[in-house]
């Protein structure tokens, strides 16, 4: 008789077999890996991720959950460290970007984790793996914003709004009455200008920036 075989007769019925096979244990994650941890650690700002001891001070004091209820920096760190890549992508890929960098978590962390930077690094890690498919609003805005800074050296409000809407394919939304009246109000009160000024000889700086960012 094989090992792990239990001999049992109940009410004259023989129940002999390997009990382990009758009641298979529920294993959801078989391969836990630290490869993602190593990857995030190497990204800018990700170095302190391994210091975390999962106390939850960051999430407990986070300013975001009032608005984005599932935002949870401690969990992002946990998922990366445990190698639960699928949960990170399926449930959290749209959340990690929402950090507003108020730095409360970093300031309070009892272990010296630079939480805000680590969350950014996790977002970058997901971006590098191209999990987002089409451009998100956040990414589109980042691209338009950085593009403008590099090209002109300053932000032209009207242009940035127009570019943002056209990039996300919502130019029609921009022409909605409420948007137009808001724009008009801001224009008349001097909040925005129709044409932003130019910076002298920005071309050279712009050239240099582009070379650096290549």
């Amino acid at each position, binding site marked *: 008789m094989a090992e792990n075989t239990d001999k049992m007769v109940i009410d004259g019925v023989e129940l002999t077999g390997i009990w382990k096979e009758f009641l298979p244990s529920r294993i959801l994650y078989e391969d836990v890996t630290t490869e993602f941890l190593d990857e995030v650690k190497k990204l800018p700002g990700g170095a302190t991720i391994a210091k975390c001891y999962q*106390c939850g001070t960051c*999430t*407990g004091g986070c300013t975001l959950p009032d608005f984005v209820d599932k935002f949870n920096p401690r*969990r992002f760190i946990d998922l990366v460290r445990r190698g639960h890549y699928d949960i990170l992508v399926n449930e959290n890929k749209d959340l990690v970007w929402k950090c507003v960098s108020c730095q409360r978590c970093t*300031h*309070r962390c*009892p272990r*010296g984790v630079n939480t805000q930077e680590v969350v950014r690094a996790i977002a970058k890690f997901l971006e590098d793996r191209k999990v987002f498919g089409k451009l998100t609003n956040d990414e589109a805005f980042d691209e338009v914003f950085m593009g403008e800074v590099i090209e002109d050296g300053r932000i032209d409000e009207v242009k940035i709004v127009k570019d943002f809407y056209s990039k996300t394919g919502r130019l029609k939304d921009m022409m909605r009455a409420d948007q137009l009246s808001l724009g008009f109000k801001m224009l008349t009160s001097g909040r925005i200008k129709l044409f932003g000024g130019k910076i002298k000889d920005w071309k050279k700086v712009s050239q240099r920036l582009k070379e650096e960012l290549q």
Partner: protein
Amino acid sequence: MKTVLVIGGGVTGLKAASELAGMGYNVSLVEKEDYLGGQVVKHKYYKLAPDLRPAGDVIDPVIKAVESNSNIKVHKHSRVVAVSGNAPEFKAKIKNSKGESEETFGAIVVATGFEHFDPIVKQEYGYGRFKDVVTNSEVEEMLNPNGPTKGELKRPSDGKVPKKIAIFQCVGSRDKQVGNPYCCRVGCVVSTKQAIEIKEKCPDSEVYVYYMDMRMFGRGWEELYGKAMEDYEVIFTRGRGAEVTLKNQQLSLRAEETVMNRPIQHSVDMIILAAGIAAGDGTIDAAKVLGIKQNDYGFLAPKDDFLSPNESSKAGIYIAGADKGPLDIENCIVEGAAVAAKVASNLKN
């Protein structure tokens, strides 16, 4: 030379002094306050974990053994201001309000102990801003029938009996922000004990403990932890308290329930901060006067942690108890006896 100077009149110093006197040494005990018993007496510790036996049961006999022994000279309200010479002959200047005196000793035992961490630097917990945020030593005074509230649990703001009480663990311990990355070693069991005492006093109150790890390594501690959960229904939530605010005139705490992956907001009547253990003034003073080594956190460093735990970096000067790092009363008494044995055997040779 059969005289020994013991600095510090807490549990460790008292035990060391009475043991040494019992072996025939003449002991001078120097205490900066005008009472003996150290932090136990200062903060009116009421009951001791894990047996919930009155602290007086333990500290009174230790004090009595010192006061009744004619070989021990107790200098209250005194400080050691200067020490010169080397082993086995030290000259120590003892100063009190009346003046200075110089005596010669064969050995010096430093048992200057610890002080409770002051949570005012953890500004997010609101200690000092909100009256109902109190420390665990203040609760100990409250529970003691000889304390300011005559043993009644009342919240400081309006004197009402609190219904919902939260306890924050690891305040000023395991925290790099305040420079104390070490574990205070007693906070867990003290909070569990206080939770049980509160539940016994007010059975319809609710007690919530916010913790990161419950470190129940001492004798009977784990059993006490089980008792708190099973018999007293104390709710232990894994998540460090993040902040305390005032909402609709009520204390409101925020933390993450890490098991549930969600931040929670919790309105309570009183918050107890389990303040950690820091090196006391007396310890830092003694290190300066005697010229002995301290560790990174201000505690005294033994010559060898494993092989000579009670010897300081200087020959003839011995260290014991909570001035070496956080320690519970039970082990402080062990330390006091251990250092006495070491001193006696070294002085004999």
